[in-house]
């Protein structure tokens, strides 16, 4: 079962005196398990906003998102909690994605306690995750600022994996990284996808990256999505 995005529209500025501006309208597509949907388009067209709507960080002006046949905006209580974990988002700036005041270990342990995973199982889970994303255990003792962009982006992916999601929205996951690191991350993403049967929504302005990663793609331009 996939994630179905139907006729999403987003408008900004509903203030009393400011004009309303439309970001995009009637965007519909589908995300499927194990596949990558590549979304490109010039900056400022609302690609990231679209991603944020899907993970529930923002609300659409119109339209709906269906997960397993039911609208995600109508989910309540525990159902909502479960769904929230199933769809995760990875951000552009890896340094920014970690609380600078917390050691990596703390950040990860917080998640385990949220998931109510008993303390005894925690270290194993984390070790496993680190192995998956190809990191040394030593990073746990570091503060985010002490790690490189590549390491952090791997950790960001690992953190998401702890939640066992079904879909990940990748918001420009490599555009802040160097060429060589970009290649590493992209490869890692592919590897993880294959293993966990994850569905990706890859948002990027770099068409080469999209071409490389995506199974099918679309372009968000002038407020509407054209599928290719």
């Amino acid at each position, binding site marked *: 079962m996939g994630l179905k995005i139907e006729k999403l529209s987003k408008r900004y500025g509903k203030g009393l005196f400011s004009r309303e501006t439309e970001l995009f309208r009637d965007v519909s597509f589908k995300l499927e398990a194990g596949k990558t949907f590549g979304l490109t388009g010039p900056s400022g067209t609302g690609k990231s906003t679209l991603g*944020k709507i899907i*993970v*529930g*960080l923002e609300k659409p002006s119109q339209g709906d998102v269906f997960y397993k046949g039911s609208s995600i905006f109508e989910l309540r209580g525990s159902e909502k*909690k479960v769904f*929230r*974990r199933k769809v*995760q*988002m990875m*951000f*552009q*700036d*890896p*340094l*920014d*994605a*970690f*609380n*600078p*005041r*917390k050691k990596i270990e703390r*950040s990860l342990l*917080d*998640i385990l306690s*949220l998931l109510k995973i008993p303390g005894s199982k925690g270290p194993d889970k984390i070790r496993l995750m680190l192995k998956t994303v190809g990191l040394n255990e030593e990073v746990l003792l570091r*503060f985010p*600022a*002490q790690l*490189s*962009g590549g390491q952090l982006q791997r950790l*960001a992916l690992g*953190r998401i994996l702890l*939640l066992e999601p079904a879909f990940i929205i990748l918001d420009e996951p490599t555009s802040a990284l160097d060429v060589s690191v970009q290649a590493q991350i992209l490869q890692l993403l592919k590897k993880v996808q294959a293993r966990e049967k994850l569905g990706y929504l890859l948002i990027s302005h770099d068409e080469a990256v999209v071409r490389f990663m995506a199974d099918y793609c679309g372009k968000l331009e002038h407020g509407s999505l054209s599928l290719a």
Partner: protein
Amino acid sequence: MQKESRAYKELGVQRNLGLPKESYTLKESGLQKFGKIFKTFNRGGLLLFFFFFFLALFPSLFAPYSPSERFIPYEAPSEAHLLGTNDIGNDILSELVYGTRISLMVGFASACISTVIGLSIGLLAGYFRGWTAEVLMGFTDVVLLLPKLPLIIILGAFLRPSVWILILVLGLLSWESLARIVRAKTLQLRESGYVKSAQCIGFSSFHIMCTDIIPNLVHVILPKFMLATASAMISEASLSFLGLGDPSLKSWGIMLSFAFSRGGFIRDMWWWYLPPGLCITFCVLAVALLGFGFEPKTGVAKKEVVKLQ
């Protein structure tokens, strides 16, 4: 993004130096020299502060006599009375030592009140947007525009002279600048990747505010807290001078106002009027210096507060 690092980001060295963030070679060396005077200030500030703090905690260890013990009045400094005696013969040094506690209490208690209010309003308004935030910040702006000291003076005139009321008034009227900074910073933080990720992951808003936002606000709150303490102490002294203080609790401000009203100034008894004045100045200085030390080196927040939207 952190503003101060922009110039050095150009150099591309910041992130991958692999040093703890605090000791990025470039950043630190850049700040080192001005950091140095701050440090000397701070060391002085810290020392001063602890000095006053211990005076406040254990006055009996430092004061030669009880503050209410009476000797010959209007004595000049002598071996028995290092700072002489006042108009009713109290040992001024002892009075000074015992006054520390009250002055510090006024400062810290009112700063606590204002910090709690400012932090909660700023945090809520910054984290939850929408109408509540609009209302909260609108209210904050309105309070910001009230002329504080005149209002405090007028309230002081209307209310009965009591330290507690004074603390309450000072606390209730000095939270708005903190609220603004906190809100500005919270707005910034809530857009940061780690808050967004935390939201995605499903942490509760309360959890996010407590673990992700407040710890990152500490360097904004602490200096403000210290400055609020300092300004409360000055306000207390000023109100005492106007005769709006509480004479039953002998703070430095009250001592000073007695020194002026009972002839200390005119008799040129500098050992009477200068020490409480200097104590206020130096205690405020110590507190303010500590505050400067906590100040984020960016100063972004400062700018944002000052700019009205």
